[in-house]
């Protein structure tokens, strides 16, 4: 079946004219038609555009172009601005917003020839770990429609798992690619901070946000990351460093790779979850890797640190949503204050408002030192811990989440319980490190993910380690029932 082929296999069929990009696109559009509504994975479908893009890709192929991604369908998380297409960020605030430009990520993938099928559902303004805060309703996990797919890139993860597209994009600020990848049994990649441009990616927490990709394998993710990565003069935090050939890197040998088990990751981890990770370690050892235990003593402080820094930055980033130049405006504003308060009060959902208020509080006079400044100091300690660990090992390994997907509605009332979900992923965001989540087994019939974290700009080694694991195992090939 087309939707189970790898990108490499699809490229082969496209190049040998067995199928056209238009046919491929139609195939995925009909899957979206069939499965989309039940999953609620998409906010906007761009069928007409997609077919036009597919035809254009076919034409490029006729003219001799052969890129890996040429004519491959893809769904963008609705956080990336797409010129002429609604970009809602999962919020009522931008429900009527037609972006007037393309994000750099969108431009680059377009140049590589992808065919955009639509915009994926997400937690509102990327704030959430379950895709339950979206203005457009929750996304369902294709493995069990009563369960969450994770978040904030829940729609992108669910779409990838349900084979609605071979590739989907996401963003990861506190785990929003890795965690949903783990809960939906797909591969998710978060690059090093500064590796991929943030221009056109609606900002949540500027010093933490990174764009990344979902795919069913590392081998599929590699060309996508390749196209997305690289210096962008429009983003001052974008790093001007050469991008290695990620696909070529997959073939590197694994022997001698030193993998660190993070002690703090295993403390309190349920036995069945720990077992999956230990199985994965056995695979790595059999491939020639060495493992050793390392410690990041400040890691437990990463969640409260994050929940000071991220809300602080977002409270400021979201001030531009004021009903003046674009986006939601309340009806009949009585005066300026009313315009602001009601446009924002009505336009934003509860979790977004909670985070804006938390951020406003921690930055406010009298609290700045105790919270914001304090958090930035702890952040440095966490970064130092990682740096020290990487002098002993090449990569770190651990679970991506403490448990498999939970029920929709189970945690929504208590924000702090939800925040604790992020315990394994947040550290990498605070330190700007690249991370990968790979399917590594099942608990209670639901997928679990294993996480690899590397030093800055070690994506090539990370992807190689992930790829080698996927050559030796087949967790990543499993499809949810009914979506095969």
């Amino acid at each position: 079946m087309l939707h189970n082929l790898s990108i490499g296999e699809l490229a082969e069929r496209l190049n040998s004219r067995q199928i056209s990009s238009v046919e491929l696109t139609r195939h995925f559009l009909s899957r979206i038609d069939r499965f989309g509504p039940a999953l609620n994975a998409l906010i906007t479908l761009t069928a007409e555009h997609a077919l036009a893009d597919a035809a254009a890709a076919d034409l490029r192929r006729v003219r001799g172009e052969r890129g890996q991604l040429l004519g491959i369908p893809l769904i963008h998380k609705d956080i990336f601005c797409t010129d002429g297409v609604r970009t809602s960020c999962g919020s009522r605030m931008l429900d009527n917003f037609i972006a007037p430009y393309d994000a750099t990520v969108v431009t680059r993938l377009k140049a590589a020839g992808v065919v955009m099928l639509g915009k994926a559902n997400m937690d509102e303004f990327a704030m959430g770990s379950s895709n339950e805060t979206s203005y457009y309703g929750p996304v369902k996990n294709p493995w069990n429609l009563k369960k969450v797919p994770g978040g904030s890139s829940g729609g992108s993860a669910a779409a990838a798992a349900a084979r609605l597209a071979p590739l989907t994009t996401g963003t990861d600020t506190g785990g929003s690619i890795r965690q949903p990848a783990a809960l939906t049994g797909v591969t998710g990649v978060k690059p090093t901070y500064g590796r991929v441009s943030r221009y056109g990616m609606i900002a949540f927490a500027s010093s933490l946000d990174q764009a990344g990709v979902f795919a069913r394998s590392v081998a599929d993710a590699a060309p996508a990351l390749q196209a997305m990565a690289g210096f962008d003069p429009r983003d001052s935090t974008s790093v001007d460093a050469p991008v290695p050939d990620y696909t070529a890197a997959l073939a590197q040998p694994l022997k001698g790779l030193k993998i660190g088990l993070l002690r703090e990751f295993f403390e309190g981890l349920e036995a069945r979850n720990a077992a999956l990770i230990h199985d994965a370690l056995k695979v790595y050892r059999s491939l020639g890797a060495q493992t050793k235990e390392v410690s990041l003593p400040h890691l437990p402080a990463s969640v409260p640190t994050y929940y000071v820094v991220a809300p602080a930055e977002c409270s400021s980033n979201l001030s531009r949503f004021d009903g003046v130049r674009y986006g939601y405006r309340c009806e009949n504003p009585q005066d300026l204050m009313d315009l602001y308060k009601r446009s924002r009060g009505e336009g934003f959902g509860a979790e977004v408002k909670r985070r804006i208020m938390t951020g406003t509080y921690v930055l406010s006079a009298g609290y700045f030192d105790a919270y914001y400044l304090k958090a930035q100091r702890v952040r440095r300690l966490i970064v130092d811990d990682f740096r020290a660990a990487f002098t002993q090992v090449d990569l770190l390994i651990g679970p991506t989440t403490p448990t498999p997907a939970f029920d929709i509605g189970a945690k929504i009332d208590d924000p702090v319980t939800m925040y604790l979900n992020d315990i394994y992923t947040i550290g990498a965001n605070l330190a700007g490190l690249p991370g990968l989540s790979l399917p590594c087994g099942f608990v209670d019939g639901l997928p679990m993910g294993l996480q690899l974290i590397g030093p800055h700009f070690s994506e090539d080694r990370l992807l190689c380690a992930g790829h080698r694991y996927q050559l030796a195992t087949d967790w990543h090939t499993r499809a949810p029932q009914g979506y095969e």
Partner: protein
Amino acid sequence: MSLTRQDVEKIAHLARLSISAEELPAYVSALSSIVNFVDDLSRVPTADVAPLAHPLDGQHQRLRADAVAETDNREKYQANAPSVAAGLYVVPRVIE
């Protein structure tokens, strides 16, 4: 550490968010819970540790050449605007 109603009202005002009287208790409780949670940070010793603002410590700001690189796209950009008149964005009267 618990926040009071007044605390939350003040924050909501600073952040220009309308919170109804019915919604307020839920926000007070949620924010108190969050603040309580992040108060844990005070237990981490950080004497002599410099704050880290960017994960890529050691990078510095790139300087851009002073060149005009934009054309007039007013029509396109104002297509999204809730209220414009004669090229201006219209808002309720600003009082100085």
